[in-house]
């Protein structure tokens, strides 16, 4: 029986949290811990699987089952765990280096298989644990100890990677807004199949305030657009601006004197990924940065497929005795 009265506290482990003071990870941890009691899943059925990096310390701070694995491989380990035990609610915690660099391949495949795991990718656009090298999401020209003259690597956008991997649930949230994180995590947990969530996270040591231009309280409403299902894409302190589709491109304009084109209404359920990709391509400062659920579509789950094949095979060949196994093929008797 699930204890009906679990609270946030039940999910806090006895380990001292060792992130740097001021790190965005604290807020994410708090948001996750507060969401846990609302999932309706008993604590013993929850598992946090992580790779390597600052964010991947996460499982130690959760009083659930946890597996701090090796660099980049958490999605693969979570896949095996889910296949062996489809009842579990499995979260994968990863970062921009862990998930998009060394583990990029596994991220692609866990999403395309639609394994029912919830992937939290903490994007701080830098390597924290190894002390500040540029990552796959770092901006061009980003100067670090390993790129003293600036990074030459074209950054990639995690949301677009997830969409290209056929992810069935794709969202973005940010560490400066506990309420938004909580809502997003709850939606992800309720989704059947893979859920991918990019979390903009502030690394105060190596990439301090990299998102401040976007998500600081005083600029947030002008520099972000919150995606709400069925609602128009409206932003601005007075909710007076909108995102318009004009030909193949998006632009912003005032609602009072709308520009040419059509004001978009958010439809994350579209089967076609075209719309979600259009939103995913929105980058600040050219356009406000979208946060919320980009895409949420039903797709068959892999675990069910595996179980289905086993059941089907068993119907066809109900005899699973060892003697039958041994005698399959040509046999002969020596007397």
């Amino acid at each position, binding site marked *: 029986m699930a204890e009906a009265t679990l609270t946030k506290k039940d999910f806090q*482990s006895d*380990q001292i949290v060792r992130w740097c003071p001021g790190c965005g990870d604290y807020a994410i941890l708090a948001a996750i811990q507060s969401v846990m009691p609302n999932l309706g899943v*008993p*604590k*013993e*059925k929850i*598992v946090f*699987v992580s790779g390597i990096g600052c964010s991947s310390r996460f*499982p*130690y701070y*959760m*009083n*659930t*089952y*946890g*597996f*701090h*694995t*090796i660099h980049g*491989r958490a999605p*693969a*380990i*979570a*896949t*095996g*765990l*889910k*296949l*062996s*035990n489809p*009842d*579990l609610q499995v979260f994968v915690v990863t970062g921009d280096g862990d998930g998009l660099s060394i583990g990029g*391949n*596994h991220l*692609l*495949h866990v999403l395309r298989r639609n394994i029912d795991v919830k992937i939290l990718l903490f994007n701080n656009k830098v390597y924290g644990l190894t002390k500040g090298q540029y990552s796959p999401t770092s901006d061009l020209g980003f100067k670090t100890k390993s790129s003293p003259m600036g990074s030459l690597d074209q950054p990639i956008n995690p949301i677009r990677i997830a969409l290209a991997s056929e992810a069935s649930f794709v969202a973005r949230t940010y560490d400066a807004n506990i309420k938004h994180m909580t809502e997003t995590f709850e939606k992800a947990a309720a989704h059947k199949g893979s859920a991918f969530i990019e979390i903009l996270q502030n690394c105060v040591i190596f990439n301090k305030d990299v998102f401040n231009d976007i998500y600081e309280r005083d600029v947030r409403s002008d520099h972000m657009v919150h995606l709400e299902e069925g609602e128009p894409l409206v932003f601005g302190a007075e909710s007076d601006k909108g995102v318009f589709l004009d030909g193949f491109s998006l632009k912003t304009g005032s609602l009072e004197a709308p520009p040419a084109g059509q004001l978009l209404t958010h439809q994350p359920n579209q089967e076609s990924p075209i719309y979600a990709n259009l939103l995913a391509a929105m980058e600040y400062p050219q356009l406000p940065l979208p946060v919320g659920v980009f895409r949420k579509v039903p797709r068959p789950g892999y675990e069910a497929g*595996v179980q289905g*094949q*086993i059941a*089907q*095979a*068993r119907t*066809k*060949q*109900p*005899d*699973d005795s*060892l*003697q039958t*196994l*041994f*005698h399959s*093929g*040509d*046999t*002969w*008797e*020596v*007397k």
Partner: protein
Amino acid sequence: MESATIRFSGDSGDGMQLTGTQFTNTSANFGNDISTFPDFPAEIRAPAGTVPGVSGFQINFSTHDIHTPGDRPNVLVAMNPAALKANVADLEDGGLLLINSDAFTKVNLKKAEYEVNPLEDGSLDRFRLIPMALTELTHRAVEPTGISKKEADRCKNFFALGIMYYLFDRNLELSLTWIDKKFGKVPDIKEANRLALLAGYNFADTTEIFADAYQVPAANLKKGNYRSLTGNQAVAMGFITASKLAGRPLFYGSYPITPASDVLHELARHRHFGVQTFQAEDEIAAVCAAIGAAYGGHLALTGTSGPGICLKAEAINLAVMTELPLVILNVQRAGPSTGMPTKTEQSDLLQAMYGRNGSSPCVVLAPATPGECFTFAIEAFRLATKYMVPVFLLSDGYIANGAEPWRIPNEADLPKFEITYAESQENFQPYSRNNHLARPWAVPGTPGLEHRIGGLEKAHLSGNVSYDPGNHQLMTDYRAMKVRNIREDIPGLEIYGDPEAETLLVGWGGTYGALFTAVQNQNKQGKKVAGAHFRYINPFPANTAEVLARYKRIVVAELNEGQLDFLLKAQFNIQTHTLFKVQGKPFMVREIIDFLNAL
């Protein structure tokens, strides 16, 4: 005749593996002891007619117990010039050489880089050369079915098989039934293959090309039911059996690789046993998924060949650190890097022992025959789950693809092993240990056991992350001790051969057949030689030091540059004579005998 060795050889598209398998099954069914050695190119279709594209299948069948596919064939079937070129050096002097003379065209001779037609220059005089117009004869035989010329061409392997069946006085029944089953849906092809097989047989009979049919009487095998089994089939069956015995589902994470892919195929066919096969995106994901499944309480397995092990090394270490039961199958192949994927070697032993960062003890097992692949698959899981430790199972391309008759066991005779998971409790200590030092297997989903594991060093008992110097020493010692203590749980090293011997021939894994036969042979000559063969390498059996100390002279033979030799010298401080071979080929019995005689 007490035994005979035939090698079928032809282009990789000529169906030689199929022909060899048919002959094997028929002979096994007849009651011969058998041993086979398929040898095929890495490319599915290397350029037709060239030497690299040659595919061969050797079978040794006997009225006695045999242990190898035979050094040199007595009979060679060569379907084209390239096959002749690639194989003729192995044929014994006076051996029977059956040739498809239709294939000896100018073009084919050139492809095989023959300047002069070897059928005409006397170079084959030391053999009993029988050239036959196999293509032409097959075409005529299948004419009534009206199939195309190309389809008719593809029947000539059955014509050749028919000839061999006549020559060794075999019954056609089994192959005819097989053809019916295999081609039942395409009646004209079925009919054509039947006709080709029968025509080959009748042709050999009526034309009296052979003075006599040879008799290789049935062997005196132990009573029981038998089937023929390759090492890859045996290992797959062993894993499924382990899963049934343990009452836990099997999870196989793998990525396609020669020569291990057949294990994936074999297991994928057995979903009705609850087997999950997961074809991962790469070798790393394959082992990681298996580790995830082990954490989830399944019997978890990953399988590959040497290059795949390189990629899996970091993850295997995670299983060492988290002390999860994981079985790693390595069907060894030849060479570093890509090497020679379809050829055999034993050069991944030290990789299994030491190929990871830090002190990383794993159990290492090596079955000696195709049949032992079955028992050692079960043993690997017994040890992995009992001691909570990764176990390497080192097979090789030779025993993986070679077949031998396998006496079907009674279920009651199979080893039993029980799996226990940690049960709900207060103050659970994930790194507490039982009397054989295994930590509890605590499966997510069990209330009250919520705990965290990972690759960082763990504190004794609590399993919390620990950088404490004394704790690291303690945990390193525990991990080593746990594996070392397994020697009390495994059989001692056995000696075969002359009990008064002063020379001990030592080997491990898939070379057993050749080594055993060499010792037998030496003993028959009155030479005082004995043999000892390692199936357990980490840890070595408890009596190893004592056994080795009994002999004046120790000869280590292995298909690498001295890896077992290195381990024995390091652990037991012995002097050895060594016979090493790295040619992508198994030992020939002759080579071992010559080496022993020259000592």
